[in-house]
């Protein structure tokens, strides 16, 4: 039993390390690639590795949603738009102002350092061991119960947000088209 669980632990570690590396690498790639098309592809990888991490965190349903909705639908939309824009999508890599660029990077590093510091301060006690989880943790059933129970309002508001987003997208397209006709 101990061996089996040890083997499982090692397996999980391996998966985690791979996923983490993929996550960070693809993240950097998104930011650093010059071509938005490549960046988008990197983001898909990023989202995929995130889904793996979600699985490791016993969030099966979210992982599935991540892959289907995000990596699937949303990213496809991205790619379509990038393809539609074609060459115009290419943009200069960096800001015109060097000072802003440096300040931006420094700020991000400081922010990172601060957050890591906070996590480190808590790593010993608060974050040292996770709570025990039950069988159904992260299952669609439980999430469904939560969504339609305690968080019904949030659920409804989310749907409303989606609806408004969709309407907004349509309107943005429509006004532009009319503008073109007038031209």
């Amino acid at each position, binding site marked *: 039993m101990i061996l089996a669980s040890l083997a499982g632990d090692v397996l999980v570690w391996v*998966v985690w390390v791979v996923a983490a590396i993929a996550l960070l690498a693809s993240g950097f790639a998104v*930011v650093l690639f010059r071509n938005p098309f490549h960046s988008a592809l990197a983001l898909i990888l990023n989202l995929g590795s995130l889904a793996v991490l979600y699985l490791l965190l016993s969030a099966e349903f979210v992982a599935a949603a991540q892959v289907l909705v995000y990596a699937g639908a949303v990213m496809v939309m991205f790619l379509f738009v990038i393809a539609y824009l074609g060459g115009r999508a290419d943009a200069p890599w960096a800001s015109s102002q060097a000072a802003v660029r440096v300040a931006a990077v420094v700020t991000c590093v400081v922010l990172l350092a601060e957050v*890591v510091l906070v996590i480190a301060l808590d790593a010993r006690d608060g974050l040292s061991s996770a709570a025990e989880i039950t069988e159904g943790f992260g299952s669609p059933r439980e999430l469904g119960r939560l969504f339609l129970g305690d968080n019904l309002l949030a659920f409804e508001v989310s749907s409303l947000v989606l609806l408004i987003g969709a309407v907004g997208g349509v309107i943005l397209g429509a006004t532009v088209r009319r503008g073109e006709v007038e031209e």
Partner: protein
Amino acid sequence: MLGPTVAAYLVLSAILFATGAAGVLIRRSPLIVLLALELMLNAGNLALIAFARQHADSGGQVFALAVMVVAATEVVVGLGLIVAMSRKKVELDVDALTELEG
């Protein structure tokens, strides 16, 4: 819990967030800014799910799903704006948009 502690996930999340933030702050292409924003949102999601695991509370996952909804909506609107800009023959450069100047 198998594998690394939640703290490790949180560090990952922090790095990812910082990367995304840097992307937003230094890239000029609105498309890449949008992508970098997605990175930041996902970093947040990762932290949420990590905490959900930490406290054995599915509420965090619900929250993450809600964030996804917001992200998807944002992408729709953001891409719509970009397409509109392109149709209006506006240069696709964030620094070119200085209408808000005071």
